[in-house]
């Protein structure tokens, strides 16, 4: 009876991690992407590069630095430990922080290109009709960026679900706390429990495939923009 429980736990942690990360990234990524699409500032290139960095860095590099920063003596982990008594490294919260950074480009980039393709006109039009910038953003820009949001959510979710290196380094491999599906699969293969590894791998494969099918078919149905 222990084995099915052991199997369900990593799935639940993975889904929770991916869900929380995507919500945080939408809140965080929207203003970053909007700023990138609007600004003529020289810093734009710097911010754009920083956002894209997780795409090119080996996960272990990111994981290593995060481990140091989030650890009990790190810039972030230290004060947190002093305040709450617990460290960020090897905790679920630490995993969320790490995943947020790691999956940032997968949310920001689709939003950025969506905002860029919408252009300035809808915002100007809404403003000329009396809408404040914030009002216009939610009543016009967000609905027009639906495809971008859908892509951002799916990519952010799927990428967080599939991460391995960063999670291993920052979260360790603590059952029931930081052990996610990808690590569980690795563990099962290590001890030659191929049946368990099969079930989890096939589940992840089918789940990812289905999500992509749904996204692409919704994307086809969304109306194109007209001027």
């Amino acid at each position, binding site marked *: 009876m222990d084995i099915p429980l052991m199997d369900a736990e990593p799935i639940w942690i993975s889904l929770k991690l991916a869900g929380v990360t995507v919500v945080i990234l939408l809140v965080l990524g929207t203003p970053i992407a909007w700023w990138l699409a609007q600004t003529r500032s020289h810093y734009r290139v710097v911010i754009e590069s920083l956002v894209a960095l997780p795409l090119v860095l080996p996960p272990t590099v990111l994981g290593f630095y995060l481990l140091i920063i989030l650890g009990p003596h790190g810039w972030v982990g230290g004060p947190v430990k002093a305040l709450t008594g617990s460290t960020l490294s090897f905790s679920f919260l630490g995993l969320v922080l790490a995943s947020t950074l790691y999956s940032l480009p997968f949310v920001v980039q689709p939003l950025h290109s969506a905002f860029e393709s919408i252009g300035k*006109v*809808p915002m*100007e*039009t*809404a*403003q*000329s*009709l*009396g*809408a*404040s*910038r914030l*009002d216009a953003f939610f*009543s*016009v820009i967000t*609905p*027009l960026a*639906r495809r971008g949001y859908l892509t951002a959510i799916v990519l952010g979710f799927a990428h967080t679900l599939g991460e391995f290196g960063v999670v291993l380094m920052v979260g360790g491999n603590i059952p029931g706390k930081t052990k996610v599906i990808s690590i569980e699969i690795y563990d099962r293969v290590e001890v030659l429990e191929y049946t368990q590894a099969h079930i989890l791998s096939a589940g992840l494969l089918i789940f990812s495939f289905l999500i992509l099918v749904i996204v692409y078919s919704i994307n086809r149905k969304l*109306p*194109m*923009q*007209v*001027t």
Partner: protein
Amino acid sequence: MDLLEAKFKIDYPGFNLDVEMRIPSKGVSVVFGPSGSGKTTLLRCLSGLEKPSLGYLKIDGHVWQDEESFIPVQDRKIGLVFQESRLFPHLNIKKNLLYGYQRTFPDERKLQFDEVAQVLNLENLLQRRPEKLSGGERQRVAIGRALLTSPKLLLMDEPLASLDMQLKTEIIPFIKKIEKEFNTPIVYVTHSMNEVLQLVDTMVILKAGKVENIGPVQEVFSDVRLREAIGDEQLGAVLETLVTEHDESFGLTKLDFMGQVLHVPRQHIPVGHSLRVHIHSKDVILSTLSPAGATSVLNVLRAKVKKVGELKPKGYSVDIELDAGRPILATITRKSLSKLNLQPGQPIYAHIKAIKMMHELEGL
């Protein structure tokens, strides 16, 4: 009151705008000029979409922009209509129309939804999506959407440029109606004079980022200095007339122009209505003899010679400025001038060979 004062200065690499103007804030003012003359930039400055380094804007006594203050576009109470309709693709026509209306305080709503939908003939389109509409329908919705914010000023940037002649004739009467029925002043930017000749009250002529001339249309069209700006084929006179009688036996309509009579082919306009006519300077023939004698020309106006234009050494023609209560320009040959020996103040008969009625585009 009823005055729009504006002063804008913009220095971009390769483009300068240095405009100062005072125009009536009622009726239709047309900003006219070739592309690149700064028309659209001027309109964007008026709307608040552009914030020039040096800007001043005052409308009906309210300052919208000076050194210290700048009212942002969403608080300006302006309606904007562009060449493209810019409808929101995710909203149906009704929701597009209501977007600005819902963002206007109830006590500032001068125009009501049903009224605007009826005037612009939009009632049957309300549930449709923008992409299902024709270009002309979309443009009518865009105009309606702007109007429903009850704007103090309606700014239109080449609103008909992307439409064919058929659709233009469909929309022009609506623009005329807006100004009349809703009393909304319009600033209309265009490079095509034909399109607006029947609408325009005040002309603002732009050239290379500067105002070349501002004036009532009746004066601008007989101003020889503007030959290059408004085009040789347009110069002459724009006259406001009143329909006084229909002469069914001859198939003619009689017009009153400052107490003188003009005849045009039978018009389907009720007696008492006004009709704007356009006369080409080359269609004005001058004669010192009274038309009591036989002539096949139907329309003869009594006028006085105001000024004989400059003689160009190689040109064969010369411009004669006439005063018939309103200015009229006649272009005659130098040979005719020497024969007639015209002097300023001299009474003259101006035979009008052709008259263009400016409601023709309406297809009435």
